[in-house]
């Protein structure tokens, strides 16, 4: 039999080459290029080092507000996903009839594969505010009100898009809770509300953290939903795209340091909460 190390080397070479060299290499290069200058005439990055880009994206007030708004939108979308996934996950895991369970889980996850743009576009049809002439989308002409195109629609659309990512870990978390633990809690005199908050919630924290990584990260970097249902709204992704195509690659790279550093901090906090045991 071949030496096991030989097998390991062969198995690792391809994927490691890809993930380490292509992916991590590119990320490293991106971070470095944030410190490069720009040749005003050619629009190309020079290799002259400068702190100008970094200075601009950190100190410019308008950019700070943009970053804060993006964090706000991502947090709000995550909160909506959580607020809905918790009761739904609980119901399907603990109360639904056994025959309905599997179908419900699949039904909750299936929209994930309907296509990102298809869904964003579908919500455009829902939110279409119409004009003064009365022509409007689904909400406007069924309930008479629509959030129109703006931050509220962006938040709702992002929550709609990423809901399954929050639902799945929370549902699995409920499934893993041993029935006996809940019985013990009620035997010891806890009501259902007490059991929920003192027994179930602490055990669900890692699942919630895992789900929130996806809802938060995918929302934070989004710029296409903003284009489709956001009207004049702007998020950090839009400014990255705009500067990159300007073209000012070094400044765009400096902007990406915002989502990268926010996500590094976020992943670190979530890892402390046990998220990676549940991915």
């Amino acid at each position, binding site marked *: 039999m*071949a030496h*096991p190390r030989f*097998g*390991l080397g062969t*198995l*690792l070479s*391809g*994927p*490691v080459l*890809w*993930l380490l060299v*292509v*992916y991590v*290499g590119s990320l490293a*290069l991106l971070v470095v*290029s944030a410190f490069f200058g720009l040749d005003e005439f050619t629009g190309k990055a020079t290799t002259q080092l400068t702190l100008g880009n970094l200075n601009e994206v950190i100190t410019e007030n308008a950019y700070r507000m943009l970053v804060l708004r993006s964090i706000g939108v991502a947090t709000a979308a995550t909160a909506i996903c959580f607020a*809905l996934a918790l*009761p739904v996950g*609980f*119901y399907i895991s603990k*109360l639904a009839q056994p025959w309905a369970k*599997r179908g419900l889980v*699949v*039904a*909750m996850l*299936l*929209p994930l*594969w*309907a*296509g990102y*743009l*298809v869904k964003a*576009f*579908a919500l455009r*049809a*829902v939110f279409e505010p*119409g004009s003064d002439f009365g*022509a*409007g*989308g*689904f909400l406007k*002409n069924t309930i008479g009100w629509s959030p129109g195109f703006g931050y509220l629609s962006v938040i709702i659309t992002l929550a*709609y898009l990423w809901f399954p990512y929050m639902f799945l870990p929370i549902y699995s978390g409920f499934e893993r809770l041993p029935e006996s633990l*809940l019985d013990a809690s*009620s035997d010891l005199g806890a009501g*259902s509300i007490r059991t929920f908050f003192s027994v179930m919630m602490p055990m669900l924290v890692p699942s919630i953290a895992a789900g929130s990584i*996806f809802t938060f990260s995918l929302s*934070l*970097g*989004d710029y*296409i939903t903003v284009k*489709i249902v956001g009207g004049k709204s702007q998020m950090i*992704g839009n400014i*990255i795209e705009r500067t*990159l195509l300007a073209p000012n690659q070094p400044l765009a790279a400096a902007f*990406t340091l915002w*989502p990268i550093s926010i*996500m590094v901090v976020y992943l670190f906090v979530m890892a402390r909460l046990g998220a*990676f045991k549940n*991915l």
Partner: protein
Amino acid sequence: MQISKRSQISLRATTYGVLVMLYTPLILIFILSFNTANSLTWPPRGFSTRWWSTFLEVESARDALSSSTRLALIAMVIAVVLGSMLSFALQRFEFFGKNSLSFLAVLPIALPGIVTGVALRNTFVRFGLDLGFISVIAGHTTFCIVVVHNNVVARLRRISPNLREASSDLGANSLQTFRFVTWPLVRSSVFAGAILAFALSFDEVVVTTFTAGAGIQTLPQWILNNFSRPNVLPYVTVVATIVMVISLPIAWLAQRLADPPNDKLV
């Protein structure tokens, strides 16, 4: 645990309410693709199959469909090979840096797509490589590897190492053990990973936008470029419906393969 009748009813109402919210927009697009008007207004002005019968004449949509399909197939094949190799390495061996590598394996989907897209674009441009079909494949493969890996490694964790030991005790070499013991057990998870990788690549737009050159247009990009043009808009609803009708059953199949309800793995 005792839960009052009232809370039970409200929990059930929330669950089915969420289902309605999830599916209403999708059904809406389907209905609007038969609209006579070329806008997203509700209710539809009248019933027409005009957009469906003429959509194949829209050359840009046809080209986009074929680019997307080719792209997704190639990214899927590369990702299945590399993703499975990674899973076997991480599951079977202990080595220095294993934990970092497991963490690295989730990074492409944990970081926003725009970061991956801008980073890869930057690398290609800096090394003087043309942005085109190859660079898009490279971008897609990066996150598809992760999807395949997640599926395969989850299955491998459920297979007891005793099986492999028993196989080699009975005289099988490592190739035979793989062929007759391991492969039959992981096969369905590899297929599921492949389907999900295909679906993800077919659907991806952010990484595509940044790694594609001027000559490439995938189906999602086609939707993005045309949703605000009134004379193409009805075709966008048709294309959106087609994407749903193709991908939903495939995704359903993948979920069945990934986690067969009654399979007993040892």
